[in-house]
């Protein structure tokens, strides 16, 4: 097997007594579209912050494209080709959509003019063309999520870390967004996403990791992990799997 694009080994971090991420290892193969799921507070966003350099791990290593980048600053990681988005969208509120995306495009383009025109192309890919000249603060939630995606995409990443780009969207907006994410992956960008919307995970991801209380408890295809009892219990509480099994048996008997 080819070397993974992102390889993390034994990553841990604690905040005071809280072990937010404990001994997590995972490999993201180049060209894949994968997902990280888990209940609220499982440490998913913290894991993203550790990968992208916003937090320094207490122990463990992060390797990107064969290079050890543990604890490297986020902007250096972005230059290497790993860009993250934020769960709580972070637009440059006073600037227009075009200017927002251009900041990302500037990573590879020095000229203002070329960055601005690149921004138009990227906006088209995520369906923001009509809003290019609006101030970012005027966008709807769905629009801001697209903007978050567009700005990251404009940096021409090799690996895109998407933190809940579908959270807060209505079913219609989710249905519109799924093909956008798939399109990005098909264009050759490796995508790792944190997602709560299972419809999207089932639909998009080739491989899923499940994080609960800071630990990796399961991994596999979407179908495999949703059938995993440990995963069911992590989401619904201890003993639920057994009760569900009993209920299913009872249902079959009658």
């Amino acid at each position, binding site marked *: 097997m080819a070397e993974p694009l992102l390889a993390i080994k034994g990553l841990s971090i604690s905040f005071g007594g809280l072990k937010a991420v404990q001994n997590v290892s995972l490999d993201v193969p180049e060209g894949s579209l994968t997902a990280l799921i888990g209940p609220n507070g499982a440490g998913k966003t913290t894991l993203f912050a550790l990968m*992208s350099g*916003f937090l320094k791990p207490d122990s463990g290593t992060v390797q990107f494209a064969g290079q050890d980048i543990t604890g490297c*600053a*986020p*902007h250096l990681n*972005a*230059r290497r080709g790993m*860009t*993250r*988005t*934020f769960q709580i969208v*972070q*637009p*440059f*509120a*006073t*600037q227009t959509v075009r*200017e927002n995306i*251009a*900041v*990302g495009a*500037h*990573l590879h*383009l*020095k*000229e*203002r003019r070329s*960055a601005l025109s690149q921004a138009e192309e990227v906006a088209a890919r995520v369906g923001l063309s009509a809003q290019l000249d609006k101030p970012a603060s005027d966008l709807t939630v769905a629009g801001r999520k697209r903007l978050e995606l567009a*700005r*990251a995409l*404009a*940096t021409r990443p090799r690996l895109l870390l998407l933190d809940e780009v579908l959270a807060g969207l209505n079913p219609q907006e989710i249905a519109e967004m799924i093909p956008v994410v798939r399109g990005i992956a098909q264009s050759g960008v490796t995508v790792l996403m944190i997602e709560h919307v299972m419809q999207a995970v089932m639909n998009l991801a080739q491989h899923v990791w499940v994080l609960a209380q800071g630990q990796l408890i399961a991994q596999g295809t979407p179908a495999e992990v949703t059938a995993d009892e440990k995963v069911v219990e992590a989401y619904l509480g201890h003993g639920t799997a057994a009760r569900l099994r009993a209920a299913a048996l009872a249902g079959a008997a009658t």
Partner: protein
Amino acid sequence: MTSGGKELAGIFLFVALVAGIPLATDSGVILNFVMMALYAALLAQAWNILGGFGGQFSFGHALFFGTGAYIQAIAQLQGGLNAWLALFMAVAGSAGVGALVGALSFRYGLKGSYFALVTLAFAEVFRILALSVPFTGAGVGLMLPLHESFANMQFGSRKGYVYLVLAFVAAALLLTWWLKHSRFGAYLQAVRDNEDAARAIGVNPFGVKLGAIVLSGGLMGAGGAFYVQVFQYIDPGIAYGPGTSVEALVAAIVGGMGTLWGPVLGALVLHVLADLTRNLFGQLPGINMVIYGMVLVLIVMFLPRGIAGLGATAKSLWKKSGGRRG
């Protein structure tokens, strides 16, 4: 024409118009007003680079002003250097102080009120140092001997000074224009609006803010050097006292932070206001400061985007009220 081209044309038009004033009049009152308004604009433009475009609110820009002023005076008095060479050193020196203060405070991620307090403290430290070391003349200050000649950057009439400060203002306008149309400027505004988001897409906030404080400090130092050339005197209170810091930031805020014309507009409006109140209420000393304060409060409350943002503020109010009706 592109928006950038229009702005450039506006800058050239402004400079040409102002350059015409000394040709059209010999009135000392008018020339003095133009000179002082341009000088205030220069200080506000300097502050605007770091505060308006970079979102780093300095309360101690006198630090750079005073450093520029002292270098300008000391290089001539004790170094025996030519005034133009001294100006070059004053700009470089105050930019250097900017780099030092920036490296110290941005390295440790100081922002918001913490950064404001640190700059205030630095200005005070420099004021006390200037009071205690011999080469600044301590409390007595430094007096520049009067030798009117172009080589000494001293002019017989206000006209020469008007052209000198106009050249600085024009340079600052071009620098601000460049901020609006360059990668560095885009990065600076991105850091102002959201530092984490900027970091995630490859912006190094430390480097960007450091660049801004160097530019801002250098420009402020030019203001200090100009002050010394005009008034031929500097002491620690003038150089590093809070007055200059406040003057720079008030004009920038009143005019419109992070805009090309805001600082110039703000300086002009405040100077007109100060002159009017001084003439109208001359018998009540200090009343002009009261009015200053009131204008600032009103602008911050009702025009958060300053005078230059008047149009945008009106538009959003209109949209809001229209939205309610519809």
